[in-house]
């Protein structure tokens, strides 16, 4: 697909998203606002995973853990009376970064399937931690006492405001990732994915760079968690369940790894498909499962692959 057409298509998509709240008001239902708002938050999570997976070649099967860190940081602070978003949000992102630093420092010493398993295991640990925190609802979770407060600046209680905040952050972070993958740092990460042996031979301490990428990805996903908990107003370990991590992986693959907008496309396609299927039958997983299998077997380049010119990026 020609570059100009591609740019137009993406612009159209953004315009569509921007128009959703208007449409919602016209149709007099918050349904689409909720649907697309939720999808955008997962798109953010997928975007963050793609940095380390699509560009970095690090198959993390525990990415949903950082969603959970974001969710619980805000939830716990709110439970103890700290409602200011100016405190909660930086705290959540910082905590996600720290957790990613620790997990990454250990996991990145392994590779291949060991890496997949150890990231899965760490996510499980955090899941069980969440389940065992009875004060904060344990297995069932708890409602978020109060949404993040931003003084007079921003009212998350207003659905439209919140929606545009999410859209704005999504677009902004897309741009950040775009610059990141084309920067010197990005080239190192991508080079390490392509041929780590050669990168080391040329003098790059690849571990360091990967760890930084891991932390960045975890932080962005933590932000997604912050948005999520405010959006659904619920704190639950279910956000960290390993099937969530699997779903984010599917979104990235479906959308096309190694492309900046791919994951968002994947998130939209996956969640919309889930939405449509579940409206027809409660057994939608019966169809989604094989769809994922077929996707893996036949759809290597993903949706973004359809859009992208032959030589990529």
């Amino acid at each position, binding site marked *: 697909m020609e570059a100009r057409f591609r740019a137009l298509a993406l612009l159209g998509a953004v315009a569509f998203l921007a128009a959703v709240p208007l449409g919602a008001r016209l149709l007099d239902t918050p349904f689409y606002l909720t649907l697309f708002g939720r999808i955008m938050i997962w798109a953010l999570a997928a975007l963050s995973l793609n940095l380390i997976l699509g560009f970095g070649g690090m*198959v993390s099967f525990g990415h949903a853990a950082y969603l959970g860190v974001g969710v619980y940081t805000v939830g716990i602070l709110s439970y103890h009376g700290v409602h200011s978003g100016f405190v909660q949000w930086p705290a959540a992102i910082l905590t996600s970064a720290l957790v990613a630093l620790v997990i990454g420092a250990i996991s990145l*010493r392994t590779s291949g399937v060991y890496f997949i398993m*150890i990231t899965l*295991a760490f996510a499980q640990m955090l899941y069980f931690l969440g389940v065992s925190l009875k004060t904060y609802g344990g297995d069932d979770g708890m409602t978020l006492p109060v949404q993040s407060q931003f003084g007079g600046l921003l009212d998350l209680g207003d659905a439209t405001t919140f929606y545009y905040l999410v859209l704005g952050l999504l677009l902004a972070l897309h741009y950040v990732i775009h610059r990141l993958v084309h920067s010197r740092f990005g080239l190192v990460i991508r080079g390490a994915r392509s041929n780590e042996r050669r990168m080391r031979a040329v003098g790059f301490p690849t571990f360091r760079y990967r760890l930084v990428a891991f932390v960045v990805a975890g932080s962005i996903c933590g932000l997604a968690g912050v948005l999520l908990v405010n959006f659904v107003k619920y704190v639950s370990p279910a956000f960290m369940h390993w099937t969530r991590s699997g779903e984010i992986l599917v979104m990235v693959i479906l959308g096309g790894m190694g492309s900046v907008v791919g994951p968002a496309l994947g998130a939209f396609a996956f969640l919309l498909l889930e939405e449509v299927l579940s409206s027809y039958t409660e057994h939608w997983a019966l169809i989604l499962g094989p769809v994922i299998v077929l996707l893996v077997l036949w759809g290597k380049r993903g949706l973004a692959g359809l859009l992208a010119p032959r030589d990529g990026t």
Partner: protein
Amino acid sequence: MDPTLLLVQGLNGLQLGIMLFLMAAGLTLIFGIMNVVNLAHGSLYMIGAYLASSFQEWTGSFLLAVLLALPATALVGVVVELVTIRRLYARDHLDQVLATFGLILFFNELVRVVWGKAARYMALPAALAGHVELAPGVRYPLFRLTIVSVGILVAVALYVLITRTRAGMLIRAGASNRTMVGALGIDIARLFTLLFGLGAAMAGLAGVMAGPILSIESGMGEPILILTFVVIVIGGIGSIRGALVAALLVGLVDTIGRAFLPPLLGTMLPPQAASQAGPALASMLIYIFMAGVLAFRPEGLFPARG
């Protein structure tokens, strides 16, 4: 520390370990020889349990249920292999993880469609429902002891199969050099299918034996799957011996940890904190253990490939 409690929990740990071994042996062979990461292994365990529960309902006999469920699960495994897994051999691990993840979603929903959403239960066979007195005052459920015995028998049978039969030799050869085995004219495709079926049967056996002890429900395969992966990673991928050692270790660490860690923390922390930290830490213990092993031996305790 109460010695009776320790003994009982130790045996429970052994029993969990044996079940993990049944799961891990199949998985590690499939991974070690066929180089396939199969997340749907837990689904085979679940299917084994579901099938056994139905067979028990229809025939009224636990023994028959076992004898029917094993080949049935193996058959399901073979079908899965022919339809999906076969096409994943040449793919990278990410593709395999995703595709088998899709299988999990499918099977979890399938059992809900076929058997309904409510949890199912299997009755303990009358012959094995009693207790055994291991020592004065120490009674242990006979069924759990049976599980341990069956597991040991399977371990021995596996050992004999791998080391003393021609098929076993092919398996070991395949583990170290599958291209060569193919070049020798052995039908690799058939070998792999059989291997997968064997792994499925063992997973099914674990599921069948779990049936009377646990509740049978959709998604029951995943927690044990993850534990199984922890076992293989600790034991060393491709190594049956590693799987056995690691399975027993993991079973013991997990069970004894869950039994003794909370009270232990109770002596050190205020009760509110202990009642949360205890179970939390106990669930995390296995993963901490794995992280520890990988820190010193990134290839596991007994890596099969030098």
